[in-house]
């Protein structure tokens, strides 16, 4: 009698288990297969998102100089150039100069030299370079002892985006529809045939940082261009991308502004701000707050997805509105901010510390000399 009851118990337990198992399988969210996850997400898309994660985490680095075989802009067939007999300012003190001495100007000097340019790079700088040492088709330029320097770099320009003579139709330096526009890009409004680009070059400027204007607290992305447009200037083609100083875009650049301009442009009493510097700080902080949230959500997603795609409950959060500000928080963007006065400088430096982003340069900065200690409190300003 006891054995029969035990057997019956086991059978019922097994049946119950089988029923339970079947129920579990039928009520699963999604049958897992090769193309989608258990949450019904495309595996291919999730893998794309994972590669975006590694781009997000990528550390931006200064592009190398020495070690390149050729300048990325060099066009095959362009002849090398030998500049003979120039008085050269190298731009650094002679080897062995201490940092303290260098700061005082010791070790810097003008030197008589020949300069050899090949493959779009400076190949050699020496007291005398003989014709036998250079390629056959080398163009010889006689400098007659004249001073020679590296091309001048202008780190604050609206050439191309604020073409001159100024016309309403070509005025594209400020996206003055809204105060916070980190997502717009100066390159989208850049006119490569602004004659001023040539005029600027005639003053020795070879590279410019083309920034959005200062109407907005957050003006948008900026780009570094060389003043060479089209084939006559040695380019491959006539295009804006071909003018970028760094085709690989190792670094991105951004413009922000404090002070009188944004509140003058946007402040409408009773309607919207910023109407005062107080409002401008709010705009900055509110934007950084949202971007910080955006970055955290991305990081959380990336960590979970890296541990296993099935963990992902949705796709990687991506929104163009916050992408560039997120990149700034990830230290992939070099920020330039226009601020004149002590309240502007101090407030902005506080933002850098509150939201932990690097500021590369204050522009205009009329009153920075009055507050050097404040300037030094900038989040990691000195070693950037």
């Amino acid at each position: 009698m006891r054995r029969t009851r035990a057997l019956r118990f086991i059978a019922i337990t097994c049946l119950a288990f089988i029923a339970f198992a079947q129920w579990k399988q039928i009520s699963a969210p999604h049958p897992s297969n090769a193309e989608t996850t258990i949450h019904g997400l495309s595996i291919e898309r999730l893998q794309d998102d994972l590669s975006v994660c590694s781009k997000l985490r990528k550390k931006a680095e200064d592009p190398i100089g020495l070690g390149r075989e050729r300048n990325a802009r060099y066009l095959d067939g362009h002849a090398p150039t030998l500049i003979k007999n120039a008085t050269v300012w190298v731009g650094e003190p002679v080897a062995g100069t201490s940092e303290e001495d260098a700061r005082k100007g010791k070790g810097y000097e003008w030197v008589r030299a020949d300069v050899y340019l090949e493959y779009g790079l400076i190949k050699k700088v020496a007291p005398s370079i003989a014709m036998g040492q250079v390629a056959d088709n080398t163009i010889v330029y006689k400098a007659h002892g004249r001073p020679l320097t590296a091309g001048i770099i202008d780190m604050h320009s609206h050439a191309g985006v604020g073409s001159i003579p100024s016309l309403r139709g070509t005025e594209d330096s400020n996206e003055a529809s809204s105060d916070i526009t980190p997502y717009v890009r100066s390159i989208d409004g850049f006119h490569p045939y602004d004659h001023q680009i040539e005029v600027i070059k005639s003053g020795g400027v070879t590279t410019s940082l083309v920034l959005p204007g200062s109407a907005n607290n957050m003006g948008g992305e900026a780009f570094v261009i060389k003043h060479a447009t089209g084939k006559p200037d040695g380019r491959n083609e006539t295009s804006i991308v071909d003018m970028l100083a760094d085709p690989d875009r190792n670094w991105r650049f951004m413009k922000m502004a404090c002070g009188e301009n944004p509140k003058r442009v946007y402040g409408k009493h009773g309607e919207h701000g910023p109407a005062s510097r107080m409002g401008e700080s709010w705009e900055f902080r509110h934007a950084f707050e949202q971007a910080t949230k955006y970055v955290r959500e991305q990081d959380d997603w990336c960590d979970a997805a890296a541990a296993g795609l099935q963990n992902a409950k949705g796709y990687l959060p991506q929104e163009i509105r916050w992408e560039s500000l997120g990149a700034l928080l990830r230290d992939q963007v070099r920020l330039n901010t226009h601020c004149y006065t002590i309240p502007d400088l101090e407030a902005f430096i506080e933002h850098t510390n509150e939201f932990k982003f690097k500021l590369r340069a204050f522009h205009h900065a009329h009153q920075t000399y009055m507050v050097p200690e404040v300037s030094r409190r900038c989040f990691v300003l000195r070693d950037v």
Partner: protein
Amino acid sequence: MWYKAEAYWASEHAGKYLYDNGLTPIYVSDNPVLNAQHVVFEAAKAYKNGLPYHAALASVTTAPAYRLGFGKRLGKVKPGYDADIVVWDSDPLSVGATPVQVWIDGTAQFEHPVKLEKPDAKVMVPDESLAQIVEEPKLLDEVIFTGVSNVLLPGTSSTSEQQTVVFSNGKITCIGSCVQHLDTASSSRTPVIKLRNGYLTNSFTVFGSTLGLNAIDAEATTDNGDTGGSFTRGEDGLRLDDLKLHTAYQYGVTKGISAPKFAGGGTHHGTSVGFLTGALTSLQKDAVFASDAAVHYTLDQKAKTGDVQSISGAVGTLRRKLIEAAALKESPADVYSESAFLAKVVNGSLALVITAHSADSIASVIKVKTAVEAVTKTKLRVAIFGGAESWLLAKELADAGVGVILAPLLAYAVEWDQRRSLTGAPLTNGTAIDHLLDAGVTVGIGLEEDWVVRNLGLLAGVAYQNGGGRLSEKEALGLVSGNLYKLLGLEQPRAEEGHFVVFEGNPLEIGSRVKGVAGGKREMSVF
């Protein structure tokens, strides 16, 4: 610096102060606010203002390269760097420095560069004494300067000797060896300042700016205001004793001729006033040396305002006013009225200055002058202020006897009316001033924006250095002093009347410093 409230408190020595504090100054253009063609001139002025030479050159090469993340491939002349090279016609930090050729990524950029003749293409030996900054001058009743190797006063001949200049109670009492004054100096406790390479010049004049009419350009409460269609007198709007005027004075600009604005900066309407930048109030003795220096009207795009909605309307109004003034049988009762001043214009005793950049507007002015002279049978004294495209009419201006006050000296086509600006070598053969001088036009330098007042001496220097010998040093200095008075038919308060400047170094060169300014006061400001 005085264009906005936030720019008001600043220092031209900021670069040096930042550098002394271990921070990195970088100079930029904000093109088109400044013409980026001349951004290296910003570095030059930084050097002049005390930033060490190597840091000034770095401020537009290695420092921005590094700050942009391009420190390994831009900014230096070293193997491995991008082949971005400039060969200059003179030291890049010298006044008027101009590229002879530019390479970008190894390609030469100018096929037929215009080259300027510069006899001295040598690089500078950095002057370390420029690191000494004297922010506030001493005010001295008596002072003696020795080592003045160049007395550049009109009417004096140059000598190669070092001379002594003695100042006492508002006047120069001796120029020469002045042995007696030197002998009594120690007993009378008169400071004797030894210069290495001293220059003595007339003081400068700032023409056509809003100096004396507002303190901060963008702040209406500091401003005389825009006059629109009303004809008003500059003297009636004079507002003195502000930071702009003090700074002008310290840079040797002791005289100003300013007209009320028509509609915003760079426009003029009414009579200008000749005044002393160092005066406390307009009631001070000699504070106003010319109550109504000239009659001004504006013919640039800003003329299209109020009642006059077109340039043709503005030209017609100008011609009508002058012809009506010529037809007047008797002088107007109110000697301060527009009619009264126009009566003087048409009889040639008061200058007429028209603000215009466009060659077309300038052509209209010459036509109006001709039309009015046909009625009056008297030559009018007319000058153009602005003049970006005046070079296109250099011969016609010379033939008509019309002078030009260039503002800016180096136009760069910021507006349509200026689109045919000559920006200079290596792109163009000369700038406007070169063509005007060649045609025999009398030229002066005026201000398009007030902050430029500190640079008047250096601008004369650019015209001198880049003029290929067209101007002597005295003639170059005349661009910011004597010529303005010649154009207006006025007497200038000169060195003999206590308006002069003593420089250490040549005021036309970058390494010069103002050592003493006399602006019609009893004391001299000595740095």
